[in-house]
């Protein structure tokens, strides 16, 4: 029920903050009332006809790169796998902004 799907904003919002989005090739109108900073070309998460958040592409790319790196480190040095993982996991908590909040 809490499913939210990434969609790209493909039209300027009208006076009631409705805009057209592209969801995997399907066009539909959604409300941008909850995402006042969203603009044309942004990717947003859409739930029940509303954009609920602007997706952070840079953050997505960065966290994926970080996760890939764990794999490569391990693959490169199987003998020192455990050690390499310990290093990689340290990198995760320090190198990814905002990943720890408490």
């Amino acid at each position, binding site marked *: 029920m809490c*499913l939210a799907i990434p969609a790209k904003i493909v039209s300027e919002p009208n006076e009631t903050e409705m805009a057209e989005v592209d969801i995997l090739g399907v066009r539909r109108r959604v*409300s941008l*009332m909850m995402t006042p900073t969203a603009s044309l070309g942004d990717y947003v998460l859409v739930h*029940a006809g509303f954009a609920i958040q602007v997706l952070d592409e840079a953050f*997505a790319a960065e966290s994926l790169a970080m996760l890939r790196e764990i794999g490569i480190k391990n693959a490169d040095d199987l003998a020192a*796998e455990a050690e390499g*993982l310990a290093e990689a996991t340290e990198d995760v908590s320090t190198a990814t902004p*905002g990943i720890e909040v408490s």
Partner: protein
Amino acid sequence: MTEVLDGFRDPEVASRLVEAIAETATAPCKLMEVCGTHTMAIAKHGLRDLMPDTVTLLSGPGCPVCVTANADIDLAIEMARQPDVVLATFGDMMKVPGSYSSLAKEKADGRDVRVVYSPLDSLSIAEAAPDKHVVFLGVGFETTAPTVALTIREAARRGLPNWSALSLHKTVPEALRALVNDPEVQITGFILPGHVSTIIGAEPYRFLAEEYGVPSVITGFEPVDVLQGVWMLAKQLAEGRAEVEIAYGRGVNAEGNPTAVAAMQQAFQPTDAEWRGIGVIPGTGLALRPEFSRYDARIRVPVSPPDPREIKGCQCGDVLRGVTLPFDCALFGRACTPEHPVGPCMVSSEGSCAAYYRYTDYGRA
């Protein structure tokens, strides 16, 4: 962007995370997700089978349809039975059984029950049928409640005389406290719901770490997201930490979405809510504020549904607390299947029983 998102399904990254989990989770742990979309993601991608013996993944009360009490479904059905009432709701609600009927059965019997994609669509129904009263039945957690809050505000802006909302919305954090306090439920970590947290951020969960020492990680829905969440929980446990961390940074920031939270607080106030299987949890319901009483279906369409009754033999309540697995229910796969569901956990497409039935070899267990 699409390419980046595809990366969160990369089997190679996933298999490395599986290895990392196995190395990190040396002590037994029970990790519970509390989101129907996680229930489905874990079942669909077979993630349970990828876990080491030390890690048990449990499903909690994360399906809003499933946790809706019979008495509340009965109330919606009774409203749909009133003359000149159109009841509009999300598709998930249609087949859910109340004590004596379901909205789908009522529709088959000739009541005007309609499925909408967005709550805003129900305003158009009201505008097109001025001689009817349209009740929008709102169900869902913090992800969905702001969409209904903004629809109430929009109805007020348009001055719609023939539209109201029945709010059965619930909020998640205090339900987690009820689970932690339940002696039958033994949870060592929470896989926190991604899109609920998109709205409310990380702060409302802080008590889990600070008061109960239970680690939790806000987690996304692709296989790599879920595995990252499990790995971060295993790391917290291995290192003796208890924190609220975010493994879904592309869709969640620590502050949440303040515009959505403000909209929710403007339209709703906390009230007590009954959760199937758990009971009444104080302050976890959302009632319309008195200033919006013109749009409150409980006032506009007063009804008295018959006394509720529970479904005989259905263990949905225990399944929702993670103390009974779907396999362990005597009805599962026999009297109760997705084609002929008995309880809401099998009816809802994201219920635990439906997920187990569809994606696991239940005959083996």
